[in-house]
């Protein structure tokens, strides 16, 4: 059910600094809340996010329960060449999701 929203400029000039925005739908259950009958709701979060640019890792993040639901992460990179960004989210209970976006650099 998970789905990603990625915002990468479709075109960029070589050497331009571009902003990449990502959002992954996820509950990010912190694991500290209790139900009415006192049971702890088990933790279910995304723990790791990685972005690769043509196969090379350019950004990585460790996430903790203090990241809000539907983790929204933005960062910057230099547009060096045309190609593909690959995004990967890894989390509890075997959660893994990937997404990609392409860019053409002139």
């Amino acid at each position, binding site marked *: 059910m998970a789905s990603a929203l990625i915002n990468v400029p479709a075109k960029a000039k070589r050497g331009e600094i571009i902003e990449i925005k990502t959002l992954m739908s996820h509950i990010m259950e912190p694991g500290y809340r209790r139900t009415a009958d006192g049971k702890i709701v088990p933790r279910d979060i995304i723990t790791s996010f990685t972005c690769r640019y043509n196969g090379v890792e350019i950004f990585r993040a460790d996430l*903790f329960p203090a*990241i*809000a639901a539907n983790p929204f992460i933005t960062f910057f990179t230099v547009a060096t060449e045309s190609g593909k960004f690959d995004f990967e989210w890894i989390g509890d209970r075997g959660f893994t999701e990937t997404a990609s976006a392409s860019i053409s650099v002139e």
Partner: protein
Amino acid sequence: MHKQDESTRRQFLGLAGSAAMLGAVPIVTLRPSEATPAMMAAAIRNVVGAAEVRTGKVKLDVPPLVENGNTVPMTVSVSNPMTPDDYVRSIHVFNEKNPQPNIGNFYLGPRAGRAQISTRIRLADSQKIVAIARLSDGSFWSVSVDVVVTLAACTEEVI
């Protein structure tokens, strides 16, 4: 989403001053396992080791008064060039009073072009937030910001 029976809802709001709904399961927040400033200091030590942490260079943008602790926009930027010889290696964000002291670790590199990240965080209480940047020369720079939270995290359903 709000299929909850009104009286149950009121009951929970009255009880803890905080009730949350998740699907149809009512969830009450309990915060006995609050992190302490000492835990934050320990978490920071974990990252920086014995190195000295200097104040400066780092800018932490977070609203000073937060109405809803469930989703607080946060931007960390470091005023440092991003060249192959001199760049920001990572940014680490910590809190004082959430159940645990870490918020996130962000690993950049010279290819980032600009040392700036944004995300949305949760805050369980009014507290201090600390952002620490690690530069390529091994030095650490930090900034801390005090935030007032009027509605603690986990008390409302998030969009």
